[in-house]
């Protein structure tokens, strides 16, 4: 089967990384709430922050969501800044008001923001206090999604890491598998079916769809990260004795194969059975990718930092579709979790971590890639300059993992190019 070794060791793992400091055109971790609140169906996310935080949430997401969302902001006001004691009373009042409106909520996250961090509002104490008060009906946890500490998808990492200490202890002698990362339900179901067919079980997911169904964890837990941005969560799981299975991330036919293979090996699945079980999915993925290949092969692509998905996606596009990564920027480079990915990136790829947006845009203009992956603040301006873009957020908001999404994932990159060729205006 195709695993990392088959592609040789010409990769990027030793390439120096360009590290820049300057204006970072990225989201804060609060944005994770937008998909997390859909995934965990009885959870509510209460941001303790400013009007800016509330405005961010509704600008980035709220406008797309007409149904009443399971998130809100407790906006700190002038008088809250005057006295700390009042701030805690106020928070209690807001939580009461919120839970009265939504009695169906079983898990409440108090989400820290830049203002709440800067004024050192102790939300973990508040969560503990309120958990006692609402004990029996609603669990209350806390994490920070502030911009000063987290970038975009790191909000999910912080949220999941906050769940870990409360997971039930798994003392059973039999190994179990945990898939870590909030995946779209359809993708999660596909993976669960595959593991079942491989005879791997029990398999749990973190997060689960309901607060009461979160997985247990213990020394016999083996976990697979489904997303590259879960450093803190991985560490918290390791603290509880669980073991991470090293693998490529499950993007494309090769990435998915490698990811499944890591679990198959850990659970002693016979090589023949593994190949037989994944063959149909793998073949389907390859067929689907073949459609997109003519449009993408040989095209040069740059990634601006956004979600930490950049490196695995660049690997997928390079290895499976023949694209040429020019610059791959990431907000944060987790070397250990990405070692295998880096080894597969073409050696000429320019890697960058962090950002000075004006300088990075100068490089994009000089490079003139065929496709630039960037955030919504930059996409239309770059289009207006004649550069074709793929807006990065969609990569987090679409089912892209696994065999049966490989074609869709490739299509996300092909579509802007196809559109550019199609339009006669």
């Amino acid at each position, binding site marked *: 089967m195709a695993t990392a070794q088959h592609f040789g060791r010409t990769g990027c793992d030793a390439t120096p990384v360009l590290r820049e400091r*300057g204006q970072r055109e990225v989201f804060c971790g609060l944005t994770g709430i937008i998909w997390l609140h859909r995934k965990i169906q009885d959870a509510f996310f209460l941001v303790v922050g400013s009007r800016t935080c509330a405005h961010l949430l509704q600008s980035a997401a709220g406008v797309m969501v*007409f149904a009443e969302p399971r998130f809100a902001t407790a906006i*700190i006001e002038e008088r809250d800044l005057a006295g700390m004691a009042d701030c805690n009373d106020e928070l209690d*009042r*807001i939580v009461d008001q919120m839970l009265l*409106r939504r009695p169906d909520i079983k898990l409440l996250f108090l989400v820290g923001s830049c203002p709440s961090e800067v004024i050192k509002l102790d939300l973990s104490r508040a969560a503990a206090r309120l958990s006692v008060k609402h004990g029996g009906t609603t669990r209350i946890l806390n994490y920070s999604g*502030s911009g000063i500490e987290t970038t975009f998808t790191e909000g999910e990492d912080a949220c999941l890491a906050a769940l870990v200490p409360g997971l039930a202890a798994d003392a059973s002698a039999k190994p179990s598998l945990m898939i870590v990362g909030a995946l779209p339900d359809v993708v999660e179901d596909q993976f669960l079916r595959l593991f079942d067919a491989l005879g791997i079980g029990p398999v749990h997911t973190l997060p689960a769809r309901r607060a009461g169904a979160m997985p247990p964890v213990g020394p016999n837990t083996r976990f697979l990260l489904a997303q590259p941005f879960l450093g803190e969560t991985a560490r918290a799981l390791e603290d509880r004795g669980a073991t991470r299975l090293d693998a490529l991330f499950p993007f494309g036919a090769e990435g998915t194969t490698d990811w499944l293979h890591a679990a198959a090996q850990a659970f002693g699945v016979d090589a023949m059975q593994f190949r037989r079980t994944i063959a149909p999915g793998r073949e389907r993925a390859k067929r689907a990718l073949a459609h997109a290949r003519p449009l993408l092969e040989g095209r040069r692509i740059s990634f601006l930092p956004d979600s930490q998905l950049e490196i695995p996606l660049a690997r997928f596009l390079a290895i499976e579709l023949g694209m040429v990564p020019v610059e791959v920027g990431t907000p944060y480079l987790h070397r250990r979790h990405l070692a295998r990915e880096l080894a597969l990136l073409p050696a000429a790829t320019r890697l960058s971590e962090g950002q000075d947006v*004006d300088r990075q845009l100068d490089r994009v203009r000089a490079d003139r890639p065929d496709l630039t992956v960037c955030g919504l603040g930059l996409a239309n301006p770059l289009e207006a300059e004649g550069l074709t873009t793929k807006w990065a957020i969609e990569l987090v908001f679409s089912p892209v993992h696994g065999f049966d999404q490989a074609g869709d994932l490739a299509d996300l990159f092909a579509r802007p190019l196809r559109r550019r060729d199609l339009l006669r205006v």
Partner: protein
Amino acid sequence: MQLTVWTYEGPPHVGAMRIATAMEDVHYVLHAPQGDTYADLLFTMIERRGKRPPVTYTTFQARDLGKDTAALFQTAARDAYARFTPGAMLVGASCTAELIQDDPAGLVAAMDLPCPVVALELPSYQRKENWGAAETFYQLVRTLAASPAPNRSNARPTANILGPTALGFRHRDDVIEVRRILNALGIAVNVVAPLGATTADIARLPAADFNICLYPEIADTACRWLAREHGQPVVTTVPIGHGATRDFIAELAALTGIDPAGACDPGHLPWWSRSVDSTYLTGKRVFIFGDATHAIAAARVARDELGFEVVGLGCYNREFARDLRAAAALYGVTPLITDDYLVVEEAIQALQPELVLGTQMERHIAKRLRIPCAVISAPVHVQDFPARYSPQMGFEGANVLFDTWVHPLVMGLEEHLLTMFRDDFEFSDMAGASHLAPLPVAPEPALQAVSPEVAPHPAPDASAARVWSADAERELLKIPFFVRGKARRNTERFAAERDVATITIDTLYDAKAHYAR
């Protein structure tokens, strides 16, 4: 603290961004944490601008806090000047930077940049977006338009059009429409600002004979200052609606001594509204909410030009509460001045209007309550920055209003048929107004119980506890859905006042007779 599901306005620094982005050569250096650059996409996505907003953010992170965030700010300001060489620079803090107290004003003063610098004081924990925009525009005008006009030529009267900004609801087309009126009257436009203006244009503001305060939320403070400092009179009628447009023209005519006839245009609204097809619009109960300017203008159009009954009127910007209260008195309704979405939701639920005219937020509410709705004011989403010409102001604006507001209502014949034959399997009233969601969308699990008649909130009075007999309940269902909520409420109130324990068919019709309109 305030529990906020949706917010009507962003923080004040977003208002400042709207001024900077509207203008041509102003750059804004904003001390803000990493993440606050989200605001760029308001302009690049919702307004679909093809240029990045002229904003440099310091985007500090936690690891910077222990060190010198002030130096970070100065570096950002220096780099921004070198890269963009603006005609003027705005500097300020976002809500988080306000807490760390780096004093952008002092820092930038010490740097001695070679362009005018306006240091903004925008208290983020007290004020909001519109205030931030008004204050920023005022400070820019004060700084750049301090010297008096050399000599005003008397050849033909000239006006400044003040108030349109970036991310303004229909500002682009309103300006075109107002220019058209001025043109017809022979009034020259000196400067339109801030939208499309340069710093040099701002310096030329005093050269006009008078100012048109198109959007008081943005331009009122600046107009008052210009009136005091340069003696420029201000035209204050906001030309939204047929009547208001005529008043606007009359005000211009009175100020300049020009014959107003040249600008008068019958428009289509008066005839459309008088044509018999519109008769069924008479007395439709409408709830209006938005920024004060748009809400007040909409109320006049609704009652005087479409024949609706205004049953609720409110605004979210306290700065104009006085004007809104005065308008509410005209329509005999209780003014609703709040920025709390939940309060607005409660008011709509209690009033059970047949049409809601509001913002993006009221669309959420109306959708949930299955009430037809049209958008009249910011905040709005991408679909309300349309490609086609669609002003709110002037005679063409009145045409647009007529179409937009009538569109969500069930058409007249459809309304009759729904009342006469209730059991048509396709054409049933649960399908709602024809322009609402065509298929019932799967409700969120938590909202399953919510429908206009099963309120999530306790009803305002205890009458909800009264029992409906099965007959009466069935009879109630024969009333078309768009007035059913009101019928239920009236009947319950009627029963409560008379201490009727069980509501029967007779109670229902007694109440109907009692409240007959």
